[in-house]
């Protein structure tokens, strides 16, 4: 059934590293290293999980154009894993917000959603991710056939919402939002010119 792949195994470990590091930081904080995450540790944790969500999302979107560009088809093997890690970090981001920042005080959730539109945008993006995660298995792929690819185009919407989320958070500096926005724009445009990408293959040496 399962074929062991070194590439997949290494990718899996790498994907776990940010989570492992956060767990280590929380462990340190709770066992006498009080200054590990700064004066505002919960917010720092929420932000960290959010940053990793968007990074994994961009990595996921990078796989297909990179494969077309280089012809390295093995890359396709890790795309699903990256997508599922995007969902994992997004879930951690949402859960740490609900448990640590909101302290599960849902009477304040309404006010937060009305007052902080970026929360609404972020939550919408998360809701878009849920069906993608649920249909990422082989059974769903077979069952949905052509509709699977159509459904999974939702991920482009997620990427745009993620950039809006980050932009709306900013108070004065838009460097981060612009950086993510540019990367998302390039990745989306690369889809439009997908046939042209393979023309550059000669520039890359194909792994044997």
């Amino acid at each position, binding site marked *: 059934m399962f074929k062991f792949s070194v590439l997949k195994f290494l990718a899996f470990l790498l994907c776990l590293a940010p989570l492992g590091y956060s767990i280590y930081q929380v462990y340190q904080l709770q066992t006498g290293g009080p200054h590990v995450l700064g*004066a505002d540790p*919960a917010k720092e944790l929420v932000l960290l999980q959010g940053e990793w969500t968007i990074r994994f999302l961009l990595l996921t979107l990078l796989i297909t154009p990179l494969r077309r560009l280089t012809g390295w088809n093995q890359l396709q093997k890790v795309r699903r894993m990256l997508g599922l890690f995007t969902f994992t970090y997004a879930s951690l981001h949402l859960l740490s917000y609900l448990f640590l920042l909101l302290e599960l*005080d849902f009477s304040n959730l309404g006010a937060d959603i009305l007052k*902080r539109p970026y929360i609404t945008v972020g939550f919408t993006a998360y809701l878009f991710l849920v069906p993608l995660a649920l249909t990422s298995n082989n059974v769903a792929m077979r069952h949905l056939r052509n509709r699977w690819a159509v459904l999974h185009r939702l991920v482009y919407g997620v990427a745009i919402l993620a950039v809006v989320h980050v932009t709306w958070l900013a108070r*004065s500096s*838009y460097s981060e939002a612009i950086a993510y926005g540019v990367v998302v724009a390039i990745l989306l445009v690369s889809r439009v010119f997908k046939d042209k990408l393979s023309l550059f293959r000669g520039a890359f040496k194909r792994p044997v």
Partner: protein
Amino acid sequence: MLIKHRGPGDVRSSEITSETVFYKRRQILKAMGLGAVALGAPLTHAAASGERELYSTNAPLSGPAWLEEKLNTLTPGQYSTRESATPFEYVSTYNNFYEFGTAKTDPAENSQDFVTDPWKVEVAGEAELTGRFNLEDIVNPYALEERVYRLRCVEAWSMVVPWVGFSLADLLKRFKPNSNAKYVRFETLYDPKQMPAQRSRFTTIDYPYVEGLRIDEAMNDLAFLAVGVYGKAMPNQNGAPIRLVVPWKYGFKSIKSIVKIEFTEHRPKTTWEMSNSREYGFYANVNPEVDHPRWSQARERRLPASIFSQNYVETLKFNGYAPQVAHLYKDMDLRKYY
């Protein structure tokens, strides 16, 4: 793992007690202070030092020799809150000083080589005495006092900081402002070589940073110029060598690393107002009833927070300093003049 749950209406008994004490204490201290002035200054210090100990830190901070000498005679000042101060390591590592970067830890990391001595402050505008002065000459006439103030950031977090400095009003009077002086405008150093974020292309802030106060606000007893914290010289990331502290207003009014003080007839355009006037007004008084367009100002997180408790406290009007400052705004619509 224990997750403490507190509803929005729940107030810890410790908060209530400290508030009551705080208000009573202020009346007592005020009376004592007035009496002491009549009898001579030393009594003020004796009375105040019986009241509480000075804050200190063993962090390796030092200023120029003249400042170190003045710090030796530091005394507890008036208007201090009894709430315990936020530990020095948080006061000095969780900062908004956008000239050194927008992340909270950026200022501490990027300001280590910032040169604050020698330092000159220009005094200009509608006053009899103007010119450029060495910082030493600015600070020299005043005895340094410690004031433990609440600091409420517009981002809805707060700290309690033991500032070291002197009254802003005392300084301003020295320059004999004339009757045209309706406002005071302050300016931070502009030096892109030393302040990396001033070179950023993606900032909405037009440097140098500018802040301002109405003259009666500036002359209020609470308005303070700080040259240190925790009994030591000011860390660079906190606005060395001299910064404003206006405790009843959101933190961004308390401008850092001041190089210019100008008396003006017209209301100065301030940095955040220019950047986004819908979100940040000239007055920026702490007010739980007037929300920021993107978040509520009804409560704040008192730092340091822990992972499993956000340490929420209700925000007080004028940051709890209404008895001293509410009269300044008595006929004003604070929703309009936010």
